[in-house]
């Protein structure tokens, strides 16, 4: 190949990658937390709402899911501050975008989970005299969570990978760190090999953890 691998410069600047990975995880965790709240609230609302509310929630979901994330990131960071008097940092802007983005995906996951809750469970809840609110908290949501956990794990991991888009507005997460080392040391193959390994490893650790949670809940029947 005529290319000698030399990882020395990568290790010298490894803090860029390690710090970047931590920031990626932080962005993912905060956005997913907010997105989960958005998703849960809208999904519960959707299944019991009238036609108008349903149409509005569906419009939100369809719009977000059919537009590239990078465009939404630009729109929130460069576009929104030109029309409303708001100032926010790039990381805040990205968290905002990814929260709204993940919310749209999670509404779909939760909604299909809610619709898969067996009718008999709700009737049983009604029969023992639970109020609608108690039925939601003690019957519907726990059953729905158990049904959706595998799909939820996949969505979470895919959202973690989506944090790489934050690099386009100079948020110093892992992909940005990799690019920095790429442009400043030209150890191109090495830096992307290490970055690939870091994303893969983190993804697998996340997946392993989520699978444990799934098994834990599957056992509790």
């Amino acid at each position, binding site marked *: *190949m*005529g*290319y000698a691998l030399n990882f020395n410069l990568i290790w010298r600047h490894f803090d860029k990658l390690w710090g970047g990975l931590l920031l990626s995880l932080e962005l993912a965790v905060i956005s997913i937390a907010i997105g989960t709240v958005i998703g849960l609230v809208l999904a519960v609302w959707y299944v019991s709402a009238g036609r108008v509310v349903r149409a509005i929630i569906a419009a939100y979901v*369809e*719009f977000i*899911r*059919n*537009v*590239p*994330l*990078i*465009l*939404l990131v*630009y*729109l929130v960071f*460069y*576009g*929104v501050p*030109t*029309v409303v008097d708001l100032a926010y940092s790039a990381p805040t802007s990205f968290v905002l975008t990814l929260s709204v983005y993940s919310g749209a995906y999670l509404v779909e996951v939760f909604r299909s989970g809610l619709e898969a809750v067996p009718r008999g469970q709700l009737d049983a809840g009604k029969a023992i005299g639970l109020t609608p609110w108690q039925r939601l908290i003690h019957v519907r949501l726990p059953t729905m969570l158990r049904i959706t956990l595998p799909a939820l794990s996949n969505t979470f991991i895919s959202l973690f*990978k*989506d*944090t*790489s*888009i934050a*690099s*386009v507005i100079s948020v110093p997460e892992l*992909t940005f760190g*990799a*690019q920095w080392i*790429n442009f400043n040391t*030209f150890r*191109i*193959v090495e830096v*992307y090999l290490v*970055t*690939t390994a870091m*994303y*893969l490893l983190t*993804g*697998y650790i996340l997946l392993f953890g989520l699978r444990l949670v799934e098994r834990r809940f599957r056992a509790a029947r």
Partner: protein
Amino acid sequence: MASQILYALPFLAKGFAVTLWVSLLVVTLSLVAGVLLGVGLIYGPAPLRWAVRIFSDTIRGIPILVLMFFVYYGLPAIGLHLPSFWAAVLALTLFKTAQVIEYLRGAVASIPKGQSEAAMAIGLTFRQRLTSVIFPQAFRRFLPPWINGVTDAVKGSALVSLLGITDLMQAINQVIGRTYEAMPLYILGALIYFAVNYALSLASRRLERRFAFIRE
């Protein structure tokens, strides 16, 4: 404002054509590569199966952006010089290929084993079993997720703007650089992407229904 955007429309249209062209190339090339590698993964000898499995899991485990920079900056470093357009198409195609492999694997796995055994019992060759028994049945399991995945290719193509290719995304950014009309142009761009992808997802839902009632 309106006149500036009207003035920019032909330029945006050119960018849009690049977006469609990139998407079309990626979708076609990945279909061919994905089906070949997918058959390798399902029926190939162990070393090939392992190679395809590692390829697919690695590619699907990293952000598409990292893969794109790896290909774009990495290939010249090892002495392979591709024009930036083709480097971008190659990276997106690699990513999509991994998805196609998994769609195919899932589709073929959903065909009952008895089908393939019956085909063997009546003396069909491997090739005949694939083309006359397995693939026709697997096809309708493969089609809906694959068409759904076409919208991913269109959305993913927006990343080529980061490699200096003037697709729709990059055209929008350039027009904003001239006119400072960020919000209207981003919204216009979002609507264009939405229109294309929404049409595709409606088509996929229709196909899903169309193929749902054919029973084995």
